[in-house]
Structure formats: C-alpha cells, structure tokens
C-alpha cells in the first residue's frame, strides 16, 4: 500500500485526537478527583490540577463504607462470573457437541435471553425474588444472572471450531463425555474461555440496574450503585463524587491493563463465523 509521509501524519493526528477524546472522560475523572473544590468550577481545560489535593478521597473513605462496597463487588463478581462460566460451559458443550431433538429450539431460547432487555422482565423477576425471600440479599442478586446467554453463545461458537477428530480420539481413548469436555474442549479453547471470563467479569462488576433494584441496604450495595447514591444529596460535590467514581473503576481498569491480551486479541470475531 502506498503511504506518503503526509498521509501517515494525518492518520496519526486523527487517531491521536480521537484517542484523546475517547480517554478524556476518564482523565477528567482523575483530574477532578485530585483538585480542590474551589478551583474546579473555575478551570477551563487543564488536565493536571495545579495542586494535588486528596481531600476528595479522604472524604470518600470517611463518609462511606468504601471498603465494604469494594468487598461486596469483589465477592459478587467473582462468585457470579465463576458460576456463569461453569454453567455456561456445560450448556455450551451440550449445545455444540451433541445432536438431539429440540437443539435448535434451545439455541433460539439462548439467543432470546441475550437479545431481550433484562428490564423487560425486571418487575416480574423482582416478584419472583420476593417470593423466595431474596430481596436485599445476594441470592437475589446472583441467581437470576447465572444463566447467561452471552456466555453460552460465545463458548458454543468456540467449541464448534474444535475439530471433531479430537473428540473422536478421546472417545477411542475411553473418555466419557465429561472427560472429553475437560481434556479436549477446555484445554483447546482455554484462551477463548479466559477472554469470555474477563469480559463477563467486567460486565458483572459494572452491573448497575439489577443491583439498584434488588439491594436496599446501603452496606450491601455494590460499587456502581453505591457511588451514585453518594452523589444523591442536594449538592453535587464534584471532587468527592469523582474520587468515588475513580475508586470504583480502578480495579477493572487495572485488570484490563494487565490482561489486555485476553480482552483484545482472542478472536471475538470468530463468534461471527
């Protein structure tokens, strides 16, 4: 391909500017969180605060049970993600490797659960939770979300790509279907599984609306909902609010930075084939 120096320069300018815009809200969060309250409303577009002020962070720790929220989020997310992957793997395996009557219908059902907004059944789901006595409990938060269409769908796509010969080979070796699952499928699709796990981890961590509906007690909240409640006074104080937002986002951003390979590289687009 033919690239002049000039067109390369333009390319990088466009990409660079866009990257700045894309990252700006995150940088802004950081900047404001370290600023002084009074200077915030007077600043224009300075990326670094003139003085580094951690009052906002101190206030978050002072006024809110941040660590408790962090633990809640961590616990729920790890638990839920694990369950989603375990159940999802079994289901994906069942839907990909075997043929049986009703397979297409079941797959359609899985697709439906992916496509229909959860808020369409939010109210009756809530009533179901109530009847189990799970309001304001982590049962109510976790159980309805264990069966996740996205996970089943993606894993099924990856499983479908594993050559059948491996399957048959393991059968010949005397493995039953469970062992085949473990030795053949999980091992071969491991990077893909890690990808799906990480993406689900982020999604579960960031979940907002269901936690908003189910959890009524401040101490049990997960971070995304908790930071919004922190804002809900008659004043929106920018500095502590942004500090709280940063603190809620940092764990996931770190996970992303360290695990970027799994987020970005493993062929998510293979799901389209």
């Amino acid at each position, binding site marked *: 391909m033919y690239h002049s120096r000039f067109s390369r320069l333009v390319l990088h300018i466009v990409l660079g500017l866009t990257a700045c815009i894309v990252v700006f809200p995150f940088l802004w969060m950081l900047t404001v969180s370290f600023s002084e309250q009074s200077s915030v409303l007077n600043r224009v577009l300075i990326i670094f605060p003139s003085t580094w002020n951690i009052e906002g962070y101190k206030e978050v720790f002072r006024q809110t049970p941040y660590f408790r929220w962090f633990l809640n989020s961590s616990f729920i997310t790890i638990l839920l993600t694990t369950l989603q992957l375990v159940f999802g793997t079994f289901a994906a395996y069942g839907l990909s490797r075997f043929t049986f009557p009703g*397979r297409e219908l079941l797959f359609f059902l899985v697709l439906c659960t992916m496509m*229909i907004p959860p808020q369409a059944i939010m109210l009756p789901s809530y009533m179901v939770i109530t009847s189990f006595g799970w309001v304001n409990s982590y049962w109510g938060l976790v159980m309805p979300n264990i069966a996740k269409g996205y996970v089943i769908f993606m894993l099924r796509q990856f499983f479908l790509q594993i050559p059948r010969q491996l399957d048959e080979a393991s059968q010949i070796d005397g493995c039953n279907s469970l062992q085949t699952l473990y030795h053949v499928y999980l091992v071969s699709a491991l990077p893909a599984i890690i990808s799906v796990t990480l993406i689900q981890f982020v999604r579960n961590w960031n979940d907002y609306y269901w936690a908003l509906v189910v959890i009524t007690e401040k101490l049990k909240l997960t971070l995304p909902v908790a930071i919004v409640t922190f804002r809900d006074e008659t004043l929106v104080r920018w500095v502590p609010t942004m500090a709280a*937002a940063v603190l809620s986002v940092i764990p996931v951003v770190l996970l992303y930075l360290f695990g970027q390979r799994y987020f970005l590289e493993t062929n998510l687009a293979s799901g389209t084939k």
Partner: protein
Amino acid sequence: MTYKRWEPYAYIAPVLVLFAVFFIFPFFYSLFISFNDWNILTGDKTFVGLKNYRTLFASKIFGLSIRNTLLYVFTQMPCSVILGFLYAVLIEKSGRAKVVYRLLFFIPVVISVSAASLSFLTIFNTMHGPLNAFLKLFGITGPNWLNSPKSALPAIIIIGVWQSFGYNVILYMSGLKQIDGQLYEAADLDGASALRKTISITLPLLSPVSFFVIVITTLSSFQVFATVQILTNGGPNNASTVWVFYIWREAFRYFETSTASSAATLLFVFMLAATFVLVRHFQKTVFYK
C-alpha cells in the same frame, strides 16, 4: 460419537431450569399482570383485559418514550458501527502504534456506566463543564445540555456512542485481520483506488462481522437505562425518557405494576419479533458447515 440419550440434557438442564425460573416464567407472569389491575401493596387483583394496553397507547409519555428509544437506537447504533469500522481501518494502518491505540479505544468499554455517567454529569455541566468551555474557545455557546429538551437526548446518545464504539473497533479489527492481503495486492495491480478497494473487497468480506456488530450494538442500544437514570432522570419534561426507563419508573417510582407490566410485555414481544427476524437472516448467512 456415542453418548447416552440423556447426556446432552444433563448438560443443559441447570441452565434450562434457571432460564425457566428467571426468564420464561417472568415473561408469562408479566403478561398475566398486564391483563390485571394489580395493587402491589394490598395484593388486590382485578381482571381488566386490554385496559392497561389501551391506557398505555393513549399515554403521550409512553409514546414519547418509544419515539425517544427509536431515535436513540437509530442514531447511536449507526454512529457506533460506522465509527467502529472507520477506526478499525485506521488503526490497522497505523503500524507500531496499533497496540497503543487499540488499548486506549477500548477503555470506555471497561468503565462502568455509572462511573462514566457521573463523569459526564460534570462534563456536560452547562456553566462550568469542560465541554462548553472548550466550545467557547471557538466562539460557540454550548447548549444547556442536560437541562434543555433539545440537547438532553443527544447528550445521552453521545455517551452511548462513546461507550460502545471501542468494542466495535476491536471486532472489526479481528475481522480485517482475516482478510487475505493478496486480494488487496491483486486490486493494486488492477490500479484500484483506496476507496474502490474498500467498497469491493473490505466491506463485502466483512459482512458477517458487520452483521454481528450491527446486531450486538442494536440490541444493547435498546437497553439504555443507567445514563438516563443518573444524568437526566428522563427529563427535562420526558425529553430523554426511553422505553426501559419508562418501565422502571412506572414500576419502582410510581408503583404502577399494571402499566409497567404492559410496557414491559410490549418491549419483550417487540424484541422477540426482532430476534426471530434476525436469527432467520443469521441462519441463512452464517450457519454453513
């Protein structure tokens, strides 16, 4: 492959049970409630047939919520998809900086929608937010973003595009990688321009990816809720009330279970129909073995 008859069912059963309890049953329950007048606190139920639906269709606010939702979806989705494609192409060409750009563009996807909303709440602040301050540098007086009916929904759309197009960039990049470079070389020999190459080679070969991207983006687009609830509360004067927000507000603010259920059932049925149509098409283009 030999296996016992019951094996596949055993693998699927756990998920199926959960789906039955938390997806299928709630749908029918919602359908049932929507045909009743139900006081959730006292438990009184009276069958009223289609009355709730009639009230719903007569409600200007519900109509507005559908209009706003469609406006949102059919603006945010195309922007997100097209930008995803454009930037995927650009980043692919950027050589060694590719890794850095890719990393940065995906960041909005991992930031929780509530943290992002709080950040945007200050960014869109009319008098002191950086956005209007930036516009002022060019002599433009920024709109009263979140407080004006004309700009509230656009603000929500902007956030929606921001948060989603990075994911599409990654998807398109994976797709682009799989296109055989030789095709482009052959086209070069024929003297094709960059534009021609894009139209005749890139786009057609990317069509399965595009299809996937469009479907995924559209479906998550219909679910817009958190940004509305945090930034505008559906306002000003319902200018940013979207379908899902309408349902949530009826159910959890006004405790109107009947109206909420009807609106929710309608959404469910609408998306079900859309899924059906999409899956049919999907099967035709993709399920080749």
